[in-house]
């Protein structure tokens, strides 16, 4: 099984679970299973084209999946996926 760590703002869509375990051979499969189980999560993680939203990062253990194989990154039992909000800002007005 793959462990997916849910950040606090998204736990309202997972029945307040902070961790969800799913099966999946790839990152795409695991996230697909997650959003099938908790459909309200889908719009928070993916855009209308089905791609991961730009302000959502997904880490496989210690690596950003964007620098691995993205959705097709292979998973092994015991792997952990962490959903990480992209946070930035500043006093800049623009």
């Amino acid at each position, binding site marked *: 099984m793959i462990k997916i*760590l849910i950040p*606090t*703002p998204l736990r309202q869509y997972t029945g307040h679970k902070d961790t969800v375990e799913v099966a999946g051979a790839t990152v795409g499969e695991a996230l697909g299973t997650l959003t099938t189980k908790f459909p309200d999560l889908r719009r928070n993680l993916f855009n209308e084209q089905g791609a991961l939203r730009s302000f959502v990062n997904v880490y496989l253990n210690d690596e950003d999946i964007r620098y691995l194989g993205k959705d097709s990154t292979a998973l092994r039992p015991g792997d952990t996926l962490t959903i990480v*909000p992209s*946070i*930035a*800002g500043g006093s*800049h007005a623009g």
Partner: protein
Amino acid sequence: MIRIEREAWRVMVDHALACFPKECCGIMIGAVDGDTRTASQAVPCANVYEGDQKDRFQLDPKDQVAAERKARQLGLNVLGFFHSHPNEDAYFSATDLKNSWPWYSNVVVSIRDGRFSGAKSFIASEDQASAAPEELHYYDSES
């Protein structure tokens, strides 16, 4: 309401002062009890914004992964984030709002001429169209 414990507050202000005149950023970890959040730890992070950091910041997601793990090990939560506004007031800018997430506390620390000059906290709405001020208590305000 968010209450920041003395040591966490010291870490946040020290980081803001050390980074001046650039913006600093970091992560707050603590407990949630109903509407009250208590930040017992603050993690100072590198500002990885690629550009002029005098008015912009970006957190390194790797620091967030580490903070999330640390929070879980301690039975706590990532409560939100802090950053500084060098020579600006502690407001939640359009840039802050656009790049934030709902639920989290966002503490903005104003540093003017190398000195602490106030702080405020904000929570973005679900649709990120607005941010509401959040009652903020930190050690200096309670002493």
